């Protein structure tokens, strides 16, 4: 009696465990695949969001800095400016924020290794764009409208550095030099 009960119990436990393991494994497998898929997608979309945000905020900051500096400038310093090139360079002569002993100061913008740099006369060069984005186009055109109207037309393209998550912004703007208006 006792023996037969024990036998029954052992058989019962064994049978259930096997079936359970199979179902459990199958369920676990399916669920694991779904969850990991979800997780990968969440991480992916997070990176895409980051790419879009970085590109947008960098593009906006660069454009605002450039247009404000250009609008305040007195004139363009031609010898160190490079126009009509995809990676141009701009030097401006300005009267705003100059060292006390000077009347005017020079401000330079250029691209080095995908980053935009700015240097004010007498100060160190500072990077304007983040390392996570690449400025792939900084094209300047000089517009000379009549005798005394000087303007700069600029095209700025900012891309996300990781090529797997592509994001890009192209901004067009024209700013007249109002320092001499």
């Amino acid at each position, binding site marked *: 009696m006792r023996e037969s009960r024990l036998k029954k119990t052992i058989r019962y436990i064994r049978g259930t465990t096997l079936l359970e393991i199979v179902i459990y494994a199958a369920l676990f497998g399916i669920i694991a695949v779904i969850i990991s898929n979800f997780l990968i997608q969440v991480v992916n979309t*997070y990176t895409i969001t980051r790419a879009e945000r970085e590109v947008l905020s960098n593009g906006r900051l660069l454009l605002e800095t450039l247009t404000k500096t250009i609008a305040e400038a007195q004139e363009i310093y031609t010898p160190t400016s490079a126009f009509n090139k995809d990676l141009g360079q701009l030097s401006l002569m300005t009267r705003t924020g100059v060292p006390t002993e000077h009347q005017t100061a020079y401000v330079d913008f250029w691209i080095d290794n995908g980053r935009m740099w700015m240097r004010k006369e007498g100060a160190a060069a500072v990077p304007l764009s983040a390392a996570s984005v690449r400025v792939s186009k900084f094209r300047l055109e000089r517009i000379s*409208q009549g005798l005394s109207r000087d303007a700069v037309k600029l095209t700025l393209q900012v891309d996300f550095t990781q090529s797997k998550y592509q994001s890009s912004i192209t901004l067009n*703007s024209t700013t007249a030099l109002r320092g001499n208006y």
Partner: protein
Amino acid sequence: MLGALNSRSHKNANGFGLVEIVVAVGIISITLFALLQTELVAIKLLRTEKENLEAMLLAEESLEAVRSIRDESWTTQIATLTDGALYHPVVENGKWKLSAGSSTVISGKYQRSVTFKTALRNVRDQIAASGTADPDTKEVTAIVSWGSGKQKTLTAYITNFLSSITPRAEAKTFFFENGTTDANLAAFPSQNAGDGDPSQSFTTGGAAVTVTKAELYIKKVGTNLSDIYLEIRESPTGNILGTSTIITGSAISTSTLSWVSFRFPDFVALVPNQSYTLRLGSIPPSTSAGSGSAGPLHWGYQQTASSPYSGGVARRYIGRLSNPSDQGQLLDQYDYSFRVYTLQ
């Protein structure tokens, strides 16, 4: 009894664990799904914002272009426009110009246009919906449209505020306009061959002058012409006294020779009775082989046994093969057509 208890507790524990896991997984999935949806909405919003920024800047650029054109001349540029008609700003020969109709597609998706409307003023001289037309004030509407019906509109008023200021005048002072032969004399810009630049010299008169712009009689022959610019130098390879704005190769006429303006934003001061050289340059440089320069363009010239223009000479192949001191070849029977404008 012990065995029964054992088996029951086993069964219970296993069954409960499975359900628990399913529920937990369910909750986690829902959370992740929600997170994913939030991220997707964020991406959509960011992309919309990006489009809005790009479009807004294009519309602002339209207004800036209109203001530049107004500053150039109200009477010839703005007063002649038709109210309500579509225009779009384009850069031509280094300056803004209004062309009729809507623009071509910019940055792959945007189209822009500008319309003008003469402002009406009421009895108190305020801008109003009805009243007398004020010919010196216009309402400008800049529209940028993209995608399916998306649109940004900016409105501003421009006035003829410079009317009381006498504009500075410039006049044609040194010129040679008989060079009407349309042929390839200078091989400029050379097709990657490093053939150098052409130049034309002229001599100033008895007074010191300030150069504001020069015009050359040119046309485009190659389909892809490099961007070009003009320099005023002391001699063909001498010091650069002034550099003009850059003219986009695509803006130059292909059919016939025409006068193209090269403006010097920083005016160039010249002393009396002195020879100066107008030297054309290209981007990428025509002087270095393999730079990617493309052309050629034709610069109208005249040939006579004795040089047709007594004030100067023409040259070609200056600075060829990246040698900045190469004076090129003197063309003593030829002269290119040019006009030099000075401040009055």
